[in-house]
């Protein structure tokens, strides 16, 4: 297993415990809601309810342990990287769906129990608004506070021209602009959270206000956190641009920091919600009817697309709204499409790279990467014994396959289709493009280059004679 394997194993593997923690947390009452079902405070000690909750927790632990074991097996048993990746993507869907299924099952059981026992709040199915909390609602901080991180993120774009090699300045600037874009996005989205609905428990205005404040503080921390985490990335990449390992480590630390930030804030909000709502009055807000399986919001009378989750600070989409359906549909489609991307990678990794030539041209083919170059267009033909340092612009980067557009040190922007483990590499340069490729073994590549070079030189000689 290579570095990329460990990276995928870790980044996907973390889904199972994180999902487990979040779903486990939902089984502890917050705002009198247990596994998406609202009960009166007195009912929370009901034996039947606790039995369902206990069963859910046991099933959740079994499911998460099984999922982690399955992921490990994928990486131990599957031989090819692309096969491992494809199976890991299928695993990811299972890791998302399985806890949802368990949650939905427990939610249905609790809803039935609630109906049987006749638990009902006077505020059931009513939309409750606390005018006092709304009047004193916190105002968002000025967006000018996003300017310092934005300026820091833009610094490397300016400095790159003076510090970095010419051929990578363009791609580097585009990459840095992505981080600036993240900050601008945070700046634009931040005020919108203040337009979301307040948290409402019931008639206790102070608790309503406190819960709303906790959510807003959480989101403020997240958006400013994202901005400040993204700000120095460009500068760090600029100082370590020569080391691909440093690049990957910085990127991993950045992603991990974002994840840790999101989880810490989410768990902090949940914990505070739990403490504030330990004892609630008889009149508590109950909107269970709008939450399918306690997870999916569906309210045709609500014009909002994005809805605050009742527990934690996340958001859901209103599936009764057209745009809500579009967002949910697109998310599901993307998730389901991911394994197909893996299948494409399998084809890329396992298909042989084939090249051919005749008296006037040379051609190459590998899955979707193909070209046909006439000898008369070739400016330079060279056999590279070593592949210079390459930075991917877009395409595939696996241990045994580099394919797509890359910025190659000392050469510039080039299209690669090669196995970096088996040098040499053939470089063909024309006026408008540079192709670098190799075949399935060093001998094949070397033999092909020698034969093709002869044909090419012959063509040149003939052309020169004709011209004379």
């Amino acid at each position, binding site marked *: 297993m290579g570095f990329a394997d460990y990276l995928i194993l870790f980044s996907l593997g973390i889904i199972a415990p994180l999902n487990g923690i979040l779903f486990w947390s939902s089984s502890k009452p917050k705002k009198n809601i247990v596994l998406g079902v609202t009960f009166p405070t007195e009912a929370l000690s009901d034996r039947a309810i606790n039995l369902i909750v206990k069963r859910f927790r046991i099933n959740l632990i079994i499911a998460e342990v099984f999922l982690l074991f399955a992921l490990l097996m994928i990486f131990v048993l599957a031989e090819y990287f692309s096969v491992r990746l494809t199976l890991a993507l299928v695993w990811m869907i299972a890791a998302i769906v399985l806890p949802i299924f368990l949650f939905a099952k427990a939610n249905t059981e609790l809803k039935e129990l609630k109906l049987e026992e*006749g638990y009902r709040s006077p505020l059931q199915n009513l939309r409750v608004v606390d005018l006092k909390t709304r009047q004193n609602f916190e105002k968002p901080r000025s967006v000018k506070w996003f300017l310092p991180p934005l300026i820091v993120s833009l610094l490397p774009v300016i400095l790159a021209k003076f510090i970095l090699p010419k051929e990578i300045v363009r791609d580097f600037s585009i990459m840095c602009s992505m981080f600036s874009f993240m900050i601008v996005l945070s700046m634009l989205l931040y005020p919108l959270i203040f337009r979301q609905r307040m948290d409402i428990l019931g008639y206790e205005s102070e608790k309503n206000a406190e819960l709303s404040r906790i959510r807003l503080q959480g989101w403020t921390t997240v958006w400013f956190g994202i901005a400040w985490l993204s700000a120095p990335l460009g500068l760090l990449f600029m100082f370590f641009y020569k080391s691909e390992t440093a690049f990957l480590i910085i990127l991993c630390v950045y992603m991990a920091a974002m994840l840790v930030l999101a989880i810490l804030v989410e768990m902090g909000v949940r914990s505070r919600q739990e403490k504030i709502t330990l004892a609630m009055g008889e009149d508590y807000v109950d909107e269970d009817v709008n939450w399918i399986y306690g997870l999916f919001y569906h309210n045709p009378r609500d014009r909002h697309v994005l809805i605050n989750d009742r527990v934690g600070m996340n958001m859901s989409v209103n599936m009764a709204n057209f745009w809500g359906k579009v967002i949910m549909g697109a998310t599901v489609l993307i998730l389901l499409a991911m394994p197909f991307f893996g299948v494409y990678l399998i084809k890329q990794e396992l298909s042989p790279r084939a090249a051919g030539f005749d008296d006037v041209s040379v051609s190459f083919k590998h899955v979707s990467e193909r070209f046909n170059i006439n000898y008369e267009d070739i400016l330079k033909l060279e056999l590279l014994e070593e592949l210079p340092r390459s930075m991917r612009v877009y395409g595939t980067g696996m241990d045994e396959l580099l394919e797509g557009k890359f910025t190659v040190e000392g050469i510039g922007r080039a299209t690669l289709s090669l196995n970096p483990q088996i040098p040499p590499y053939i470089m063909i340069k024309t006026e408008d493009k540079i192709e670098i490729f190799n075949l399935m073994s060093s001998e094949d590549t070397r033999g092909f280059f020698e034969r093709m070079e002869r044909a090419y030189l012959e063509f040149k000689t003939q052309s020169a004679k004709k011209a004379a």
Partner: protein
Amino acid sequence: MCYTGYNTSIASHTMAERRLGLILTIDFESESPIYMQIRDQIVRGIGSGELESGERLPSIRALSDDIGVNPMTVSKAYSLLKQEGFISSTRKGGSVVSEKIPEGGLDDEKKLALHTVASEARIRGMGEREFLKLCSDYYRGGA
């Protein structure tokens, strides 16, 4: 504890409103239009003293965001309240509870509505004293 005593949404709704304070409860299933529910509850809030004269009301956009309805619905409720003199506009475009609410008792329509309620109470066997006590409680702004 079971809440089997709350059998109808009307009963529970009435109880919720009696404790109103500054809490609005909107029933999307009710036959009463949403703008009227907003208007009625703000009037009750003023009557009970929970909303004091000069007190600021949420903006139309904020309130419509909270209820999840079109801003036009809230705007209609606010317009009605302004027309009736219960609230007024500020220079900055906000709305506040009026300092001087026009006096003059109930108009004919309201009297007729009260007449209907009193008749219904009598038909349903509510004693006069009990009915007057209820009216008195509401009049004084209590629950």
